[in-house]
């Protein structure tokens, strides 16, 4: 019984240290660029690269709809990243890229929907319900406060 426990704990230590070793070696051996999904090197201008990264994180991959094209390995996502990269390399602004995408794939391609009549409920809805809740809460509070105290205690 004792031997079995010692054996098990030895295994646990061994496995634990192997895991730790794996994690450290992975973080040491993998340079930041290894996280990139595409073979192309990042933009030389760090600001442009940051803009590009931020943009592709807000574009929906239409093949796997709950992923952004920054996350997705789908061939279409790779094509879109390449296209966007080319456009940005030629100086396209974020608005121009979004326009390009929406003209082809519709608003659905944007993770951040534009503010337009069809999305008013989406954008204003939450604030509307918060205000509604506050009004209801205030009214309940008010009516309770209007009640005389002795009425409740009696």
């Amino acid at each position, binding site marked *: 019984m004792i031997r079995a426990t010692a054996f098990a704990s030895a295994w646990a230590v061994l496995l634990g240290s192997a895991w730790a070793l794996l994690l450290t070696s992975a973080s040491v051996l993998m340079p930041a660029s290894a996280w990139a999904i595409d073979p192309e090197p990042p933009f030389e201008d760090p600001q442009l690269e940051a803009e590009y990264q931020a943009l592709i994180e807000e574009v929906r991959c*239409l093949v796997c709809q709950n992923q952004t094209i920054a996350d997705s390995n789908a*061939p279409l996502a790779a*094509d879109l990243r*390449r296209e966007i990269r080319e456009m940005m390399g030629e100086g396209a602004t974020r608005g121009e890229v979004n326009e390009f995408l*929406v*003209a*082809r*794939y519709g608003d659905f391609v944007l993770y951040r929907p534009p503010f337009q009549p069809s999305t008013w409920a989406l954008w204003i809805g939450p604030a509307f319900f918060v205000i509604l809740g506050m009004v209801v809460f205030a009214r309940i509070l008010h009516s309770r406060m209007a009640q005389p105290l002795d009425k409740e205690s009696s």
Partner: protein
Amino acid sequence: MWRYLVPVSIFAVLAAFFYRGLSLNPGYVPSPLLGKPAPEFELPRLKDAGATLGNRDIEGQVALLNVWATWCVGCRQEHGFLVDLAESGAVPIYGLNWKDDRRTALNWLTDLGDPYVASAFDELGEVAIDWGVYGAPETFLVGRDGTVLHKHIAPLDEEIWARDFLPKIAEQCGSLPCPLEAGE
């Protein structure tokens, strides 16, 4: 009275929203191209890399542009129907071979039959992006004036053809001699 009416009406509104929302197909993304001019393209042909296929070849007729690839299972599924459709002479079918291997694609056409007047070879998928393609097979119906009239995503079959395509083709042709009538 209000005590009961408010929760019941909230429930009713939510139920209506969920009923509508949950019966929609989230995989279906309507194309913003409908009713707009077909995107410009010019690509090498699949069978003859020296020649190109573009808007000019499709213009002036009611035609189909079918996006296909040998890696696409749905394309194999609909291929028989496309071959029959081409044989019936209803409308000319053009192909957009999407992100494929030329040799494999040519073999596919040899083995399964070639319903296409010609296929464009879009190796990098750039024209596909311009057409808003996101999942093959996709089939576009392009009018005489080069307007995109309809887009179908998923394999085509007899039923979908009769329901979604035929009425739109009939609308386009009117009293003019129509390839559809010639085919029948």
